[in-house]
């Protein structure tokens, strides 16, 4: 069962990648892309019935089963969105059938290696997974070949590589820490081993390793002040890629940080790992909230909003404890679903108006009522308006913080309110007023974004007890 699920998630897409690179017809390519994503999602669902275990290469516990499921679900809906989105790009001539072959193959590469990073029990393989997933997105960000896209890809490549280099150095340090206790070879790289033996590790070396891993993977999470690549990469790449960057890759990098934090938790003499995460989280939140005001580009706007939300999530996990972890997990899920939904809507809007500049997108309520509704719902949801799920999770984070750190809760609430104001200000300009600029018919599929928003709304109104139980279990594991 487990093996079968792992084959569906990790092996089938690799075969598919080779096929996708060969298929010249973009229609067949995009259909195959959807099918492969659906296969991976099916595999992820099978994992819910798989026994939890820590093997030599794979680790399966409630934490990563949940993330793999979330990842492959958003991967599936994005592939559906992408299939219709790219048809429009082909018509405009911004993409060629040749570049689409690589686009689809890279999409599967990214999904597979994110899956590897999530499911592996080996610190080195986790690093490889995140590295290859990042490199695939770098190429996809630059796929339009415009000067802006190339600058964004270059910046992403350089900053991402520095981040990943630091994470690699941290990995070596962690191996050295473990090697003196667990002996040479694979056992000293195995996450579950590291976690259960953390008490015997040298606390100073373990702390140093953590600092490098936090800064390295933190770059990938987009935490301020290491976020510089994020807005560019989101703004200049194809919109489906913005959706998976925000919704998935940031989560996977955060997952890596959390795994290291779990190791740190086993050793009482280390530096407080949670505190560092709380500081970085709050800084990102406040910084991004302020930066939201002066955005001119609609995709940049939501990229900064992603920094803001990753800040909140990192803060919640940094504080730790069953309640804060629960809130963090819920917020991670809600943010993924809402943000990728918003990017789907933004993709439609940009195609309809022919520009990403917000000054060129006005009066959507008149010109494209259904898009205006979708964007309105999405932005209200991400800003934390009830009854959407983001409200529930933000409310949980703030109340939990109030109970433990009232001062920090004030800063947190302030950041959320500032961001709320910025988003509403921009939304008002986008939706109302006289419609200006170009106006085209939208051809891309609206189904994925409605599924996402419906789920977020459902989570806000009624959280299924089974999900609550699952999250509680994960929150316990996280410590």
């Amino acid at each position, binding site marked *: 069962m487990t093996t079968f699920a792992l084959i569906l998630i990790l092996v089938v897409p690799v075969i598919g990648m080779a096929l996708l690179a060969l298929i010249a017809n973009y229609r067949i390519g995009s259909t195959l892309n959807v099918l492969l994503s659906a296969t991976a999602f099916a595999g992820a669902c099978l994992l819910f019935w798989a026994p939890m275990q820590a093997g030599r290469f794979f680790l399966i516990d409630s934490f990563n089963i949940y993330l793999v499921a979330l990842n492959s679900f958003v991967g599936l809906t994005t592939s559906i969105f992408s299939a219709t989105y790219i048809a429009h790009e082909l018509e405009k001539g911004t993409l060629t059938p040749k570049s689409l072959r690589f686009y689809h193959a890279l999409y599967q590469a990214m999904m597979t290696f994110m899956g590897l990073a999530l499911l592996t029990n080996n610190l080195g393989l986790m690093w490889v997974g995140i590295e290859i997933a990042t490199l695939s997105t770098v190429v996809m960000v630059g796929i339009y070949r415009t000067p802006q896209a190339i600058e964004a890809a270059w910046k992403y490549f350089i900053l991402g590589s*520095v981040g990943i280099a630091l994470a690699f150095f941290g990995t070596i340090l962690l191996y*050295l820490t473990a*090697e003196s206790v667990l002996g040479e070879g694979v056992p000293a790289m195995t996450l579950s081993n590291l976690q259960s033996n953390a008490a015997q590790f040298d606390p100073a070396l373990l702390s140093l390793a953590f600092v490098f891993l936090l800064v390295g993977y933190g770059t990938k999470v987009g935490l301020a002040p290491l976020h510089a690549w994020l807005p560019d990469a989101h703004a200049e790449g194809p919109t489906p890629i913005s959706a998976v960057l925000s919704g998935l890759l940031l989560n996977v990098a955060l997952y890596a940080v959390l795994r290291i934090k779990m190791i740190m938790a086993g050793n009482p003499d280390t530096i407080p790992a949670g505190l560092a995460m709380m500081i970085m989280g709050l800084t990102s939140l406040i910084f991004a909230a302020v930066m939201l005001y002066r955005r001119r580009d609609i995709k940049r706007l939501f990229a900064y909003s992603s920094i803001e939300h990753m800040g909140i999530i990192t803060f919640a996990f940094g504080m730790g404890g069953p309640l804060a972890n629960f809130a963090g997990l819920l917020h991670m899920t809600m943010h993924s679903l809402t943000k990728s939904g918003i990017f789907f809507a933004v993709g439609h809007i940009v195609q309809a108006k022919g520009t990403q500049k917000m000054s060129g997108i006005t009066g959507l309520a008149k010109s494209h009522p259904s898009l205006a509704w979708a964007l309105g719902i999405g932005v209200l949801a991400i800003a934390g308006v009830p009854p959407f799920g983001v409200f529930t999770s933000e409310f949980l984070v703030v109340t939990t913080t109030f109970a433990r750190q009232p001062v920090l809760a004030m800063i947190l609430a302030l950041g959320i309110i500032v961001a709320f104001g910025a988003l509403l200000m921009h939304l008002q300009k986008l939706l109302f007023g006289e419609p200006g600029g170009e106006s085209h018919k939208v051809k891309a599929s609206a189904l994925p974004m409605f599924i996402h928003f419906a789920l977020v709304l459902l989570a806000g109104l009624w959280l299924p007890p089974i999900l609550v139980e699952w999250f509680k279990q994960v929150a316990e594991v996280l410590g």
Partner: protein
Amino acid sequence: METSIDISHFLAGAVLALSFVLLYQARLFALFNAFAMQSIALAMAVGWQAYSQGASHLYITAALALVMKGMLIPGALRWVVVKMGIHRQIDPVVSVNLTLLLGVFLVILSIMVVFPVAKMEGGIAREDLAFALSIILLGMLMMITRRNAIGQVIGFMSLENGLILAATGAKGMPLVVEISVAFSVLIAFFVFGVFIFRIREHFDTIDVDALSEMRGDAE
């Protein structure tokens, strides 16, 4: 045993010294040569680790460092520069004196960070780590002080040399050597195949400064 450690320190020190040489090069071809020399020193350091640890698989890493980074990549870079007619002077953002001073400071910093923390029995890994961290930080410094895309790539590859030094110094670390070698190939591929040629398609210069105009949020 003592001699073995001495030799490994000498070779790691040579890699570090060449990192400094990389820092003050003002011409692209000289930069490529310095990088090639650093990679050859790295190959020797890794080769010595392979011999003294009795880990024969490390010889592969050493050979790849020698052939790929010591010969092929600098040669290919030279070809690219000639073929594309790139301006062969590099204008540093920060003056050379200041850069070197910062470099010294970074080495002191990494010694101060690593030495108190890592108390290992053999003592080999501790100095190796300090050397490796210095090389990594100097690589970053180079990426910051050169606005030239090729300069940044060299900076990143010298940073990666530091990583390989650290990884091979860690006894019996699984997978990693193969992985990092694969990545150096991948990075070379990316740099040549994708970025440099695309940058050339749109600009007459390969100076990254020319790109900063393109920001979507420009006023």
